[in-house]
């Protein structure tokens, strides 16, 4: 079977535009970064000095047999070690400090940007993927900052320093070793190309494997119902084998490159023994210098050996940066034209509203209705008639294509969006609870709502009866996203939340799930209380709510087909009448069953 997924995008390992943009995050911490570089310089000098001390020890003291000078030199050696210790510690700490600060800035920016994006964006992007942007992708960039960027400078310092010392000790031998550079450069170049291709191929195969597995788990029921388990397994096996082969190809590239680099370092050692040894015999070169050369060559090859690893880190950081910037470049939601009304009466009007989520698939087709301040309006209609959409439009989660929605006679697009939303409280049937305590779920982290007002609100809607019975009362933790609370309790909590914000307009989507009769009567009672003195629009499922409304709007396939009071609509014997009698019959049937 051929499977097709969006292939993971893998750009170049180094993209200068991306890097420039990344560096803007480093800018506020450039002083820290500069200090780190300074410290790196000190550390490099220390590391270069140690083999040189050994050289001096051999040439000046050990060979001539002068023991006394050795003490001072050893003390110098230890002194350099101590300097290196403190410099290293300070450097690592400062580097991490700046790295963490950069991550913090990035993460905050991503989070704040996410909060600004339109609801439409969240409809299209799975939660998990977005979470990864703020967590793992940022971590990949930090990995690059903390273990590649700064150390690149260190490697350059070190390599330059080693060559400088080598040339100074013996320029012929130094140049001889430099001759190896083109060979290493060529091998590395070839390796880089192959490693990149192998890495990409492997990532593609891995992405395919994961996508197949994920899809199979989601569609496992279909696989089993169609008795296709063994075929699905065979497909998986072949994808898995492909991934394994790509993985092995990547392994081979490394398995060939690493020994070549080691071989080069052995060639350098052989050159030193041969040419350096001849120099010692000829008297133009000391034994100490020979030993120093051997030590420096060892140091020279270390950075080249971890080049491959650094390359991988760089590549994955670039991919992460690209994804993060793509998210940050998503346009934010329209904040309205900033108008604020001095006082809100709560009148709502829909004027010939047309709306489609996608293209021309109209969900609402010319909906018009008016709600006077303080009025209670019920919307009824079969599933898919567009009831929930009306709620989303009032809070401007989506913008309409044609017509107007007015609050107190002002088009809601004129109003500041924060202001608009602050006038309304929405209670959906599926109550979303946040981690934290009961209180936090009532106030939603708002600092303008004091604890007393939250408790008062809970008491007002009678949510207090169950909250106060909890071990920690209002500070009781909401566990497992509220799974331990019943549907009724969650509803009451949502009512308390709505009341705490004291909105002019209440928008309710009545819960359809089964609620025990005791909680049900509690909810009904609370509902009566919170609706008092407010404009309300309710997607009604319960007969009692419908009957007590000032106005009922009957929606069918995005069109208002009837509106009026309960009695008026019953008298018309139309759709409302049929809906009402069906609900009534159902209520009867449940009672007798």
């Amino acid at each position, binding site marked *: 079977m*051929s499977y097709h*997924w969006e292939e993971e995008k893998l750009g170049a390992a180094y993209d200068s535009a991306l890097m420039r943009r990344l560096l803007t995050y480093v800018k506020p911490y450039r002083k820290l970064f500069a200090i780190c570089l300074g410290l790196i310089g000190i550390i490099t000098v220390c590391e270069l000095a140690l083999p040189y001390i*050994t050289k001096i020890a*051999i040439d000046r003291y*050990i*060979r001539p047999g002068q*023991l006394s000078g050795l003490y001072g*030199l*050893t003390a110098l*050696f230890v002194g350099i070690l*101590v300097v*290196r*210790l403190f410099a*290293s510690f300070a450097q*690592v700490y400062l580097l*991490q*400090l700046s790295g*963490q600060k950069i991550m*913090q800035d990035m993460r905050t920016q991503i*989070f704040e940007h996410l*909060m600004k994006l339109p*609801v439409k964006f*969240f409809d299209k992007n799975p*939660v998990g993927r977005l*979470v990864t942007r703020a967590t793992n992708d940022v971590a990949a960039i930090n990995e690059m900052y903390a273990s590649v960027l700064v150390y690149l400078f260190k490697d350059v310092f070190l390599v330059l320093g080693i060559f400088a010392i080598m040339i100074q000790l013996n320029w012929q031998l130094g140049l001889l070793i430099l001759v190896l550079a083109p060979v290493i450069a060529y091998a590395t170049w070839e390796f880089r190309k192959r490693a990149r291709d192998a890495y990409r191929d492997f990532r593609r195969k891995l992405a395919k494997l*994961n996508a197949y597995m*994920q*899809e199979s*788990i*989601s569609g*496992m029921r*279909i696989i*089993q119902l169609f*008795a296709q388990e063994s075929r699905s397994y065979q497909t*998986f096996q072949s994808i898995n084998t492909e991934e*394994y082969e790509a*993985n*092995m190809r990547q392994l081979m590239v490394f*398995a060939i490159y*690493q*020994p*070549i680099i*080691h071989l080069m370092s052995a060639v350098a050692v052989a050159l030193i*023994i041969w040419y350096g040894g001849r120099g010692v015999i000829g008297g133009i070169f000391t*034994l100490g210098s*020979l030993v120093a050369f051997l030590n420096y060559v*060892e140091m020279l090859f270390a950075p080249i050996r971890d080049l491959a690893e650094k390359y991988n880190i760089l590549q994955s950081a670039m991919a992460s940066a690209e994804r993060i910037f793509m998210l940050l470049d998503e346009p934010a939601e329209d904040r309205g034209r900033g108008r604020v009304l001095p006082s809100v009466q709560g009148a709502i009007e829909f004027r010939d509203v047309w709306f489609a989520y996608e293209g021309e698939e109209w969900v609402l087709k010319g909906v018009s209705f008016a709600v006077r301040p303080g009025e209670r309006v019920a919307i009824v209609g079969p599933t898919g008639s567009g009831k929930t959409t009306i709620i989303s439009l009032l809070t401007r989660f989506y913008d309409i294509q044609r017509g107007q929605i007015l609050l107190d006679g002002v088009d809601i697009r004129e109003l500041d969006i924060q202001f608009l939303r602050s006038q309304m409280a929405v209670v959906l049937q599926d109550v*979303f609870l946040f981690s934290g305590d009961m209180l936090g779920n009532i106030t*939603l982290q*708002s600092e303008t709502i004091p604890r007393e007002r939250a408790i008062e609100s809970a008491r007002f809607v009678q949510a207090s009866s169950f909250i106060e019975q909890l071990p920690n009362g209002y500070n009781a933790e909401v566990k497992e996203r509220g799974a331990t609370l019943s549907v009724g309790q969650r509803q009451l909590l949502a009512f308390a939340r709505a009341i705490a*914000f004291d909105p002019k307009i209440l928008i309710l989507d009545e819960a359809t799930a089964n609620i025990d009769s005791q909680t049900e009567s509690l909810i009904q009672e609370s509902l009566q209380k919170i609706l008092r003195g407010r404009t309300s629009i309710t997607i009604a499922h319960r007969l009692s709510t419908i009957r007590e409304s000032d106005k009922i709007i009957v929606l*069918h396939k995005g069109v208002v087909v009837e509106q009026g009071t309960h009695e008026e609509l019953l008298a018309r014997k*139309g*759709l409302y009448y*049929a*809906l009402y*009698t*069906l609900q009534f*019959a159902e209520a009867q049937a449940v009672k007798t*069953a």
Partner: protein
Amino acid sequence: MRGIFHYLWRYRVRIFLGLLALLIVDGAQLIVPLIIRAAIDQLSRTGTAQLVLFAGYILGIALVVAVFRFFWRYFIFGASRMIRRDLRDRLYAHLVKLSANFFANTKTGDLMAHATNDVEAVQFACGMGILALADAIIMVSFSLAAMLSINWQLVLYAFTPLPFVTVFVVVIGRMIHKRFLAVQEAFSLLTEKVREAIAGVRVIKSFAQEAGFSKDFRRTNELFIQKNLRLVRVQGFFEPMIALLAGLSSAIVLLVGGQKVISGAISLGDFVAFTSYLGMLTWPMMALGFVINLMQRGAASMERIERILKTEPEITDAPDAQPFPARAAIECRRLTFSYPVAEPSANGHPVLRDISFSLEEGQRLGIIGLTGSGKSTLVHLLLRVFDPPEGTLFIGGVDVRKIRLSHLRQAIALVPQDPFLFSTTIRENIAFGKPAASEHEIVEAAQLAGIYDEILEFPHGLDTIVGERGVSLSGGQKQRVALARALLLNPKILILDDALSAVDAEKEEEILRNLKDFMGSRTAIVIAHRISAIKDSDLILVFDQGHIVERGRHEELLALDGIYARLYELQQAEAEVVKKL
């Protein structure tokens, strides 16, 4: 750990060869300082040396090392990648056997984490872990032996910082571990905060509380940074400190070794070789802590994987399983069913209560009722997605629990409410249950499902890719592809579970009319919202909250003047409204 050994044992030859290659590489590398020693000693004593010979030795050894370096990588890392492949294979082979209940109680994300992170941790333990462990043992023992042979007193002097290293590693190691766990915890909290804010973004927006949540996030972010820096303060100290202690050893060797060279106890070559061996010891000693960590993580991951592998499939063939009965009649006797308690939404309430009915072969059953009334559960029980209680559900007189699972599922085709399609072509989706189907069969099924004309309008016809889970098709198109997929199976029993809900009423009626011949001799169950879709059924059941509240044929139900009659009225009224518009 035992689980890991099992896999290592499977690739014992490769691992043995890899370790052998490693032994050769390490051994050869350990000879190099001896050659350098000989060269330096000749130079310092005689003033001449067979330099070309020594350089030749070094190059020769380097070539051997290069070749075997390739082999240990290839064998050891290769084996770890084979283990990774095998583990995934086994995991997948087991997953396809597990029952719906398992998937209902296990998050897809968790399963994916097992297949990716946990499998990777086992791979690292088997590759990097084994390698670093063996390397440390070989390097430490060999270089120690070489150093002792040079001068045992010098070894004692050089190793004076060693006790400090040990104490330091143990104490700081413990601190690092503790602080690392705190970082992990803060990271989980951070992840959860982001997840929650995104999942609840509609609530946050509707209460205009974006600023408050951003502020709260900044606090969590700050906490995470602080935990990280707490870790850095000890971790940042670790390597420089080890480097210092290793450096102290070098300083001691410089001083004491220098003295010994001057006094003639050792040669200058010995001194240089000794220093090289000391340098070779540092890395393996530092790696030891890292190896232990890798092994522990690998073992923990293996345990998590094995927990899944040990989960028994709940729905299996009975020991005396029978083939699918000759007569496709369905009988349901006083069936009451609740979901297994572990299911979060279950709370122990029965979803079906006291359901009885019987349907002859070739008859059609219509079911109507509100969402959540238990209709889908009933058909899932028939297909043994969940097992019904014994003695409640029969096909051709045989308890469904006694019918061979593969036979049962091949004989019954279900078109589910949510038409799950795979990210491949329309052709492969239609032929999903019968991959060998001919072009003719596929076209016929597509025609019967009323989707063929639309398929022809797609740029690639049947070979059009439906996108991730069918995103490029409309809801109604997906449903009809799913219908074609079921029809192609040529089932004895066909079940449509609200299968055409996204298709408009006229199209639905047209499809059902076309299906009449197909259904002719077959037993069929049609669950629908629209009465027009089921009114010709031989038996209609009205479900409400798990009960059958009304039953009979269309006319009988109308005469009953209950829910069915009201529903019919409502749908008539809706039709009126639509006509007027």
